[in-house]
């Protein structure tokens, strides 16, 4: 008993020692800035950036629909931009899912060498700078860009299509950026799917659709959920893609935050917006965690 206790306490001390660096790092570079953001979000903006140290709840009021610091005139402009961002993030998740889910099955059934090559191709975009890649889409999509020139050359359209600075362009760019993040978790899940279960389902009389809904989908759900969360979180706060491909027409909350800090120099408002995004992300994660905990107690999947 005593020996066991000393072993355990020694283990605990070793664990603390091992965890100390990462705790320190997170504490200094994550929790402290987060605390600053929380505090700033309820302070009055300074004239040229910075903050005035007075209680000022109107930042949240503005986000929720009372832009004029007085809670009288209701105009949910920021809320609608936030909902627009939510929509774009959801569409990004949906389309990258539609691309990656079938692709994962396809790749998982390839021969070893082709498989490794395809996986290499999927990670290839990371070798090029993000801005360059987004800028390439700008060149492709603009009225005198590659796609329009091609379609006009083929005589399929008379006037150039208005693709740039639309939600379509933003979703397209986001799907393009986030596809690898969706693919890898789904692929990891699909790869270890036991194909004999599919056989068994068929053997027991299930049609292909029944097999998919009752066996394949539930068993690959963890990959789908994981990939969706990994894409949803950065997509919701993204500002580079809308800045390039959305122009002034398609704005996301990320652009508002960027402008609050760097252009209008309204730090408290930017902080409040950032916390709004963070709150929604935490909400999504909590829903997922409780769900996962529930399936855990039901039995290992």
């Amino acid at each position: 008993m005593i020996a066991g206790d000393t072993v355990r306490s020694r283990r605990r001390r070793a664990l603390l020692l091992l965890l100390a660096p990462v705790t320190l790092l997170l504490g200094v570079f994550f929790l402290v800035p987060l605390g600053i953001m929380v505090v700033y979000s309820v302070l009055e903006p300074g004239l040229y950036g910075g903050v005035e140290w007075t209680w000022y709840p109107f930042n949240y009021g503005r986000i929720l629909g009372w832009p004029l610091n007085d809670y009288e005139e209701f105009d949910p402009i920021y809320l609608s931009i936030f909902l627009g961002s939510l929509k774009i993030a959801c569409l990004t998740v949906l389309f990258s899912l539609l691309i990656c889910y079938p692709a994962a099955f396809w790749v998982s059934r390839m021969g070893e060498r082709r498989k490794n090559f395809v996986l290499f191709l999927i990670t290839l975009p990371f070798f090029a700078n993000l801005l360059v890649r987004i800028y390439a889409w700008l060149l492709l999509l603009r009225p005198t860009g590659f796609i329009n020139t091609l379609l006009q050359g083929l005589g399929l359209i008379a006037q150039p299509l208005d693709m740039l600075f639309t939600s379509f362009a933003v979703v397209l760019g986001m799907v393009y950026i986030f596809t690898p993040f969706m693919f890898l978790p789904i692929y990891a899940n699909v790869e270890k799917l036991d194909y004999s279960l599919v056989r068994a389902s068929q053997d027991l009389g299930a049609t292909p659709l029944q097999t998919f809904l009752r066996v394949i989908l539930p068993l690959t759900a963890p990959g789908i959920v994981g990939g969706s969360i990994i894409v949803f979180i950065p997509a919701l706060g993204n500002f580079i893609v809308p800045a390039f491909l959305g122009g002034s027409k398609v704005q996301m909350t990320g652009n508002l935050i960027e402008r609050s800090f760097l252009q209008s120099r309204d730090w408290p408002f930017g902080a409040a917006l950032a916390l709004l995004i963070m709150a929604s992300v935490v909400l999504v994660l909590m829903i997922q965690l409780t769900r996962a905990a529930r399936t855990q107690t039901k039995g290992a999947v």
Partner: protein
Amino acid sequence: MGFLQIASAHKAYHTPEGAQVRALDDVTIDVRNNEFLTLLGPSGCGKTTLLKCIAGFEDLDGGDLLLEGRSLKGVPAHRRPFNTVFQNYALFPHMTIAQNIGYGLDVAGVRKPERDRRVGEALEMVGLSGFDSRRPAQLSGGQQQRVALARSLVLKPRVLLLDEPLSALDRKMRETMQIELKNLQHSVGITFIFVTHDQEEALAMSDRIAVLSNGRLQQIGRSTEVYDTPANEFVANFVGTSNLFTGRVTERNDRLLTIETANGRRLAARSDGFAVGDGVTLVLRPEHLRIAEPGEGGAGCTIEGTVKDAVFVGSIVHVHVDVGFGRTAILHHRHERAGASAAVAPGASVRIAYSPESVHLIAAAGG
């Protein structure tokens, strides 16, 4: 009209290197209704391939499958009235035991009261009542095995296909399950096609055994037929242990043949067939050989040799005897008399005796 006819089935696979593997080469088997048929053969002989073709997971390249006279060509796996028990059981990990067993009924749209009743019966049949809300991962190998059986049998298939279902179990469990499976087959009255590479298992369980090698059917018959009268050297070697001697018939005296091997060994055998000059192979089972008493043994019915090894396996001793020309004969020696063990000590000179009636003769290939 047979029940399930496998009519000159052909199937070839192409390896990535471009070679062709003949997994099934002109296999014809008439499966009877309600029989326990075992496909027996070494690993890679095409047993799983045949099972997959019957189940509908693979298509034959040539030949046909007929269920009560109707071809199964083009019938997808989920529409065939066959079910499979997979080697790794393939239980759905995200479902409870009851959900696993009810799966086939659910996808067929069976109403809940009837479904629940049949699932309950199936659980009871395999002795797992009360396990319905557990998950497969919470069961032992033998229990998972039973769930897989129940999951298939609850659908009352015409044929149950079992691909080496016992190979993952330990020896004791395997022997228990062999008896259980055999009894189960009897009580449900469903045709079982059982795949194994274990000849003892095949002999213990089957009504009939089909021996396969390199994609070809070597012999099909009742267990005793296959064991006592193997059709060729492969079957003689694969099913049980055999001592084989190949030679030519030099004398025929009524039913008593004398066979002379290439090394000049002269051996006697009794048989109705064969004429002087025919090439034959003698099959001598170890249990038909014994160590001759001094002075005992007629001409041609003995083989001289030196004991190489004596392996005590419990009820008997396996004696390995060097009989010259690089050949070793194996005989099963009962050790009821204490004195006899001295006779089978390594190094001892012995004479092996057998009765000519116990010899089975195979016509030598091409002879």
